[in-house]
């Protein structure tokens, strides 16, 4: 079994805070906590390391180098950390884990549940919960090793309780021995009789705090973004009616309104008759142009962003949002009118 281990500068023995800018390096065999893994039966083939500051400041470049090493000799399992409560180290572990898992490499890590690296991994790693500091090393390594052994052999670690890892935010299907109807009836009887029961689905929503108000719109660039499926008449780029895989942008410089029949909606999740009669009701270009003329807003961004928001997996939609938001940021947009259907 080929095991690659990722460490930061400190645990790789490159130095302390003064070495936090250390470039990515590849070291043959185990070092630092990797030797501890050997004691519990996991022999590390190669160690990769990078300074925490270096990774934070030049993420793309560091990641490219680290991933290229993984590509050269893909491991059966990648172990990152454990990073305990260290935010920068945990973040690097999480990002590398995310990339490795996208390449099909199983990843095990260890972190305190509040470490930002847990979110950065985006469900790509089996992360063992650890103490916030290195005092928990021995216990963490034993649990990391157990998972690494299972994954390295192509096994299934089971659910988070069985496998001893933090829920990855994934919902995996299994076949129950009883129908949903029977489970519902039993759950209701338990609830009525005051017996213990366990809900099968608990909310795990990404709560987005509203941003602070823009203090002065008269100088702001405002953009229009919508999932209403609004496109130029004829749908020139073939936006799909549901389960979108892409978002689109269309120029609106000099356009005063999204009037029919110049625009239409291809959305498959609502009755489109009213929207097609006046596409401005989906993407309110006419109204925002008026605000621009009146000087209420500084100016409108030169393109509007569009997709269809129906049956789209949440992860896909989140990626759309991040990509569009990045473009808006780069363009200096300060406010967005986001119309949903």
């Amino acid at each position, binding site marked *: 079994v080929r095991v690659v281990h990722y460490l930061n500068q400190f645990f790789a023995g490159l130095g302390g805070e003064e070495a936090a800018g250390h470039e990515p390096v590849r070291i043959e065999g185990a070092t630092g906590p990797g030797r501890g893994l050997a004691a519990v039966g996991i022999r590390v083939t190669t160690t990769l390391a990078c300074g925490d500051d270096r990774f934070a400041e030049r993420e793309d470049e560091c990641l490219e180098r680290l991933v290229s090493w993984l590509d050269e000799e893909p491991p059966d399992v990648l172990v990152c950390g454990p990073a305990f409560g260290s935010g920068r180290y945990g973040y690097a572990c999480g990002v590398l884990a995310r990339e490795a898992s996208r390449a099909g490499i199983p990843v095990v890590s260890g972190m305190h549940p509040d470490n930002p690296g847990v979110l950065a991994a985006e469900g790509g790693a089996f992360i063992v919960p650890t103490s916030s500091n290195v005092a928990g090393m021995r216990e963490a390594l034993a649990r990391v090793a157990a998972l690494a052994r299972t994954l390295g052999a192509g096994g299934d670690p089971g659910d988070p309780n069985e496998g001893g890892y933090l829920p990855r935010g994934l919902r995996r299907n299994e076949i129950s021995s*009883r129908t*949903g109807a029977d489970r519902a009836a039993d*759950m*209701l009887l338990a609830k009525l009789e005051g017996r213990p029961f366990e809900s099968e689905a608990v909310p795990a929503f990404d709560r987005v705090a509203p941003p602070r108000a823009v203090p002065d719109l008269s100088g702001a660039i405002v953009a229009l973004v919508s999932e209403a499926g609004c496109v130029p008449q004829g749908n020139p780029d073939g936006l799909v009616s549901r389960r979108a895989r892409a978002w689109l942008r269309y120029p609106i410089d000099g356009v005063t309104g999204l009037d029919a029949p110049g625009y239409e909606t291809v959305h498959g*999740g609502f009755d489109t008759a009213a929207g097609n009669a006046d596409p401005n009701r989906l993407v309110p270009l006419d109204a925002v142009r008026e605000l621009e003329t009146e000087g209420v807003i500084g100016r409108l961004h030169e393109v509007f962003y569009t997709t269809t928001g129906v049956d789209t997996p949440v992860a896909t939609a989140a990626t759309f949002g991040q990509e569009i938001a990045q473009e808006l940021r780069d363009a200096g947009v300060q406010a967005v009118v986001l119309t949903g259907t």
Partner: protein
Amino acid sequence: VSRAGAEPLVIAHLPVDRVREAGTTTWRDGTLEVGLADIAALAQSEPGISEARAHVVQPGDPVRLRNVLDAVVPTVKTDSPEVTFPGALGGRETVGGGRTTMLDGVHVISTMPTGSPDGEEDELPSAIVDMDGPAAEISPFSATPALVLALTRDPDVAFEVAEASARRAALRAARDLAAAAAHDATAGERTEVLDLGEVDASLPRICAIVQITSEGPGLDTFVYGRPASELSLPSFIRPGEILDGAVTSGAYESPAARNPTATYQRSGLLRRLYAEHGRSLCFAGVILTLGYLDDGGEKRRMAEAAAALAEELGAAGAVGTTYSLGNSHTDTMLTVQACERGGIRAVAIVAEEGGLTDHVPEADALVSVGNVMELLPAWEPARVIGNEPGTREGASRTPVLDVLGAATQLGDGRLRAVSA
């Protein structure tokens, strides 16, 4: 507590172990022979259907059914076949009592590509039923043979005309199969008696709150043949009426999470509550509610009215079911909230799209019927029934979402999503 006029529903279940093509339809000792030509000819006589073909498919066949509209359990009112599927096919008479004959082990499945050839009209999602491969393991319609009505829509006729014809054709084929079998049956029946007689008054009264939807042709659930949007909901209905064909489907959203007609006819939830009646609870009846309402106020009003009706029935607890995906889950959550605030303990059955679509703090007892976003392993059928002409079907990974009834939120599947 028995209600005036609520006579027991007695269902004679005829087992179907084998289904074969034949010249005429007969049932004998578990073998159903189906006269395909007659059934196809009847379907083709419906307006708006340019072509109808009938097939028999078996579990394990390398066959995929595409553009599936509905699945129906063959059933007939034994003493009055003309009221079978009242309103939708037969006379609009109250059902849920008296004798019914039902075939166990076979479905009638209708397929029809819904998009117009010029792509002008919005296509409904294409539901699949695979008779083999990974999707067969999670579909309630793959484990038994099926009579497939593969219909082609006349492109010159409005969608709603062809759709109504497709519904009638499937219901009629289901009725006629059961009628022929009932005629031939001399033995081999299993008799099910569904009765809500008087029970110990100290048992907790429980109701089921069944959410249906009605948004126009292709998106309608029918109650006694009328689209639910034309009814005054929420409304009380006896569970026997639902099991006896009073509720039929013409709603073709989200294939995995919709409720084909067969799921109402077979409902394991209603049957379980019947079975518990007099033992652990008193089954106080079913409340039909409408989901997919247009705004928050409408949703809240429907939820509160359903909870008030449950209170009126003396319910101490309720099981809420959900139709399809998306904003109908808000209707479910508000119904749970209204019940709990009214002192009625509530459980709801929901499918997940990578996770819950909506949630309220009161919803502390949810049954998950699966994550419809999960992809199944790739499988390539050798033959496809129900596709548009000229479409090729390769080996691809199908999301659970596409598999008819795989995550029905009436709770008849065994799928469940767990954290990983």
